[in-house]
């Protein structure tokens, strides 16, 4: 039972991470290769607060705020550089986060932070993560239909044209980064308390790519597609434990095959089969 609960929790956390990235890359068109850094920022900030004796809810809140604040800073970078330049800058943000954390004694350096106080059992975290995932799904669906979603779309498709017709490109980009990274911070805060141990390597480049893969396999820009992608890519390695030795090989091949044969992911498949767009 514990095992199923923890798989469900991780699936829910991945849904939160993937939908956050989808907000930035899918809705607003700003490719980010460093999403794990914000997951890590949330985890480290919340863990430090809890270890210092702050109440759980407050620690989680700090995690969300810290990740969101750094997200806004990176959002400012997105105002300065575009497209492939931005992709590499966000990748750099990920490496910079790891590089700094690895060298700081007060952040536990390579050993990470251990013995993070945990106020509830596995079931509590599962509920909390699933609640967060549902909230993110509702937020995503709402944003997509709202005025802001249209503005994101305009920025994604042609930001010069968007600016010409009076869309506040800088403002919307910043909001996209704020929403996306703050939700990663939430996932990080829950993760840190649930596992009670965080190490830098949990937030490395491969983790960033894993989150991106969930978005892309699900279908970038489609909320339900991304949820499906996140759940599937979490559960699949668990189902295929017997190929544990070849996990990354299969994973790499999967990314390659999806990009090669269905670059729009599950959402693209759905559209081809039913002729309708997946929300």
């Amino acid at each position, binding site marked *: 039972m514990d095992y199923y609960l923890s798989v469900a929790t991780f699936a829910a956390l991945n849904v939160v991470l993937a939908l956050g990235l989808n907000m930035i890359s899918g809705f607003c068109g700003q490719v980010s290769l460093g999403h794990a850094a914000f997951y890590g920022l949330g985890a480290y900030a919340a863990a430090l607060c809890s270890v210092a004796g702050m109440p759980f809810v407050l620690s989680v809140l700090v995690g969300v705020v810290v990740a969101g604040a750094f997200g806004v800073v990176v959002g400012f970078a997105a105002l300065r550089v575009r497209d492939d330049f931005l992709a590499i800058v966000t990748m750099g943000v990920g490496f910079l986060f790891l590089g700094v954390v690895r060298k700081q004694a007060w952040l536990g350096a390579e050993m990470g932070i251990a013995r993070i106080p945990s106020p509830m059992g596995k079931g509590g975290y599962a509920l909390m993560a699933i609640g967060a995932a549902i909230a993110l799904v509702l937020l995503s669906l709402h944003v997509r239909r709202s005025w802001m979603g249209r503005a994101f779309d305009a920025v994604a498709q042609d930001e010069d044209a968007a600016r010409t017709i009076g869309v506040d490109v800088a403002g919307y980009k910043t909001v996209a980064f704020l929403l996306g990274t703050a939700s990663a911070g939430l996932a990080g805060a829950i993760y840190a308390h649930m596992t009670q141990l965080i190490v830098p390597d949990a937030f490395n480049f491969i983790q960033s790519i894993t989150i991106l893969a969930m978005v892309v396999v699900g279908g970038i820009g489609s909320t339900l597609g991304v949820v499906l992608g996140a759940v599937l890519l979490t559960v699949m390695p668990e189902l295929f434990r017997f190929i544990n030795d070849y996990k990354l090989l299969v994973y*790499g091949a999967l*990314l*390659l095959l999806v990009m090669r044969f269905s670059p729009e992911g599950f959402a693209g498949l759905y559209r081809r089969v039913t002729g309708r767009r997946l929300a």
Partner: protein
Amino acid sequence: MYYVELLVIGLVWGCTYALMALGLTLVYGLLRILHVAQATVFTLGAYIGLLVANRTDSLPLAFVAATLSAGLLGPLIYRLVYEPILDKPPFVALVASIGVLIGMEDGFRLIFGPYGLSFDDNPWFTATWSLGGITLNLVQIWMVAAAVVLLSAFALFAARTRAGVAWRATVSDPVIAQNFGVSVMRVRYLNFFIASALAGIGGVLVGLLNNLVEPAMGSVISYKGLAIIVLGGLGNVPGTLVASLALGVVESFGSVFLDKVLDRDAMAFLFLIVVLMVRPKGLLGGAH
């Protein structure tokens, strides 16, 4: 004197980066693809070079084998992975490329084992050369020599030969080049061959330099290579060379002065982010 030594070591590393980054920038210049999978080509070159060197005791033969095998893998990746998705948005090729990198890295681990292999006999590793109080081993000297010779050869090729002219024409405008009878397809294969051969040679040299060839040796250097080509202004060849050397020097000094604050790999990206915030199109501006 200490600072001069740091500078020289930095420039040696810069030459290593240049061998990797030139290929990345060639691919980006022609097809607008961030070719992360170049790391795979680099690692393959290193493994093939090591196997041949250990089997035949001949480093020249090892370099030939590495150049050829890497030079074949690059165009193969282009044909199988990139060509079918050229008309898709750029992140599609990037994710596919990362897929190739992750999968092949695991493939190398399964075939050659996780701990890496060493050269049985690595004469350049132990032989040293002293010049004005600075001691370098022979691999480092060869690294610089290889970078200078290969990059000069490439410059000559691009400037003087018919194929070089066709290549430059295709980079600046594929449609017009095709109308003038240039085979764009052949230019692309040639482009991938040159890029990959350089990476393969770089792979063997880095293998000799560390006397270790391991599955993950290509990935960090290719991530840094991406930082370098962005610094150099994406697709800008002179910019890439300047950025490679600059990054080598920054890392060399940084690993002394910033050691307490951040690790070596993060330095490249800190440098990148700082430069891009001041010059959003890279050190020498964009070529496009």
